[in-house]
């Protein structure tokens, strides 16, 4: 069989195209890493997992000693939160603020010393109506059935619109590669890459294993109470029914799920 020049070129052209075409239609950098379903912690031990209709937290401010940082240390160690050592690049999931900073609308000069000097733990409010989820252009931040507002670190493009949208300053951007700044890497939770946003995830990875949030367990004073807001018999509901409590910036309609007992 003889192939003339014209035929050869034709075949060569078609073969080249067939090699290039898939790369053009679906460039490597647009491909998402597909995680097999069995890797989700939920699927590991569904019977053991803690579940709720709406997870929420109550913080009893009076029980919280001003200089204690146990909850912060536990959370940041569990979640591989880096410490850059400067406020500009800072990443934080839970930290402490003065009452006036956490509740600017409820604050005034004669509030009383005890309230003014309070150092309240603040974290993502896990809003029932979260603005960050609404504004995200890639659904990298999303809300689960049980109310937890989550981040997909592999989908986030780092546009930081969620940071502008959050009225609680709860979100942090990885302005640099965080890995060299993690004191001890916890292999049970992923580290992040530079250029993505992160925040508190209510320890969903621990809930899936039947464990409570790290901050709640770390608090020796039992100032943090975690539970299901839609279960009238839950500890958190019974507690909030008895005690006066506030939500941060309730007037914005975000329906925060962190209740502050003051």
């Amino acid at each position, binding site marked *: 069989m003889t192939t003339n020049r014209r035929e050869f070129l034709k075949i060569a052209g078609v073969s080249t195209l067939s090699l290039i075409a898939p790369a053009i239609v679906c460039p490597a950098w647009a491909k998402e890493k597909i995680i097999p379903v069995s890797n989700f912690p939920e699927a590991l031990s569904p019977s053991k997992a803690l579940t709720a209709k709406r997870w929420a937290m109550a913080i009893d401010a009076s029980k919280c000693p001003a200089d204690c940082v146990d909850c912060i240390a536990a959370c940041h160690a569990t979640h591989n939160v880096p410490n850059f050592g400067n406020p500009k690049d800072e990443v934080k999931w839970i930290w402490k603020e003065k009452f006036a900073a956490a509740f600017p609308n409820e604050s005034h000069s004669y509030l009383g010393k005890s309230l003014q000097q309070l150092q309240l733990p603040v974290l993502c409010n896990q809003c029932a109506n979260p603005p960050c989820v*609404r504004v995200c252009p890639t659904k990298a931040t999303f809300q689960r059935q049980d109310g937890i507002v989550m981040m997909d670190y592999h989908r986030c493009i780092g546009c930081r619109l969620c940071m502008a*949208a959050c*009225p609680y*300053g709860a979100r942090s951007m990885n302005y640099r590669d965080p890995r060299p700044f993690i004191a001890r890497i916890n292999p049970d939770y992923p580290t992040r*890459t530079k250029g*993505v946003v992160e925040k508190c995830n209510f320890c969903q990875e621990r809930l899936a294993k039947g464990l409570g949030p790290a901050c709640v367990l770390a608090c020796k004073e039992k100032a943090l109470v975690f539970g299901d807001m839609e279960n009238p018999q839950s500890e958190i509901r019974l507690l909030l029914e008895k005690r006066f409590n506030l939500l941060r910036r309730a007037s914005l309609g975000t329906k925060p799920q962190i209740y502050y007992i003051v």
Partner: protein
Amino acid sequence: MLEKSLKGSRGYWIWIIFLLIVAAIGFFFYLRQLDYGLGITGMSRDVSWGLYIAQFTFLVGIAASAVMLVLPYYLHDYKAFGKITVLGEFLAVAAVIMCVLFVFVDLGQPSRVMNVLLHPSPTSILFWDMIVLSGYLLINIFTGWIILTCNRKEIPPPGWVKPLIYLSIPWAISIHTVTAFIYAGLPGRSFWLTAIMAPRFLASAFASGPALLIIFCLILKRYGHFDAGVKAIQSLSKIVAYALAASIFFVLVELFTAFYSQIPEHTQHFLYLFTGLEGHTKLVSWMWTSAVLAFAALGMLIIPSIRRNDGWLAVACVFVFVSLWIEKGLGLVVTGFIPSPLEAITEYVPTGTEIAITLGVWAIGFMILTILYKIFIAVHDEKESP
């Protein structure tokens, strides 16, 4: 027609090489930013948007302003603009490309940018902004290029271009409205949470865009032997005057609401801009410069004898451009974050790297604009002297 951009005077090539160098420097620093992360900029946890997003916001306005030529010419048959509508459309093309580049360099994970298309989220204003901006880019490339081609061949534009041009009018309004909605719908950012944001954006756009176009027309008259015509330039200058007046009025309206109501959440941002907050005064001198330039330009544009003098008109237009660049390109974005929702005052100063990247993007925009305008002038010359 593209080949026409390859033949030019010495000055043309020096200008192109200069822009190439600035763009190359910007690219070099962008590679450094890619390597290090956005921490190389002045942006922080509290002020999470800076110079890049500010340029994006300002340039969407420049892009939208092409409608100020298209609308009078195509809807009201205002013949004086016939010669220069293509200049407006080409300016829009260059401005939208700069917008896209500024958003791109602002991304923490630029390699994932296609996620916006792979996982479309209709509740996100940024998603819609991408749609309207890319649509606007296509409309303007098509209409500008086709009309110029038809001018060259001295044939009337094909019938199907008209509907596209009519579509570009509401579309121009939409790009700046949607961009304003990125800001105006965020709870807890009281500086941006105002219904007048979109009208304010449009007013300042219709002042800064035509002002830039007047400057370009005056440059082309002097160095490109292309005369847009006194009537066209004077009409444009009146558009700038009215739009600038509206823009100033809208800012004053904002100031009234903030300071008469005396709600701290609303006053504190304006106080930061014009007086500084608790000793933090980095933007104060900029904002007063902007205010003085705006009022000076308005005065100059209102007085007919000054407006009719090309030299003074150019000065007034530079004032308008600089004033609104400061107001929208610097003040508006950064101040939304100062003070933060936790009442912390973190100031923002761009770093050298950030400024180099910003200049690089501007250089790319100017290069596209220069090439498009060069083709426009070449086609025009060809017709004048066959």
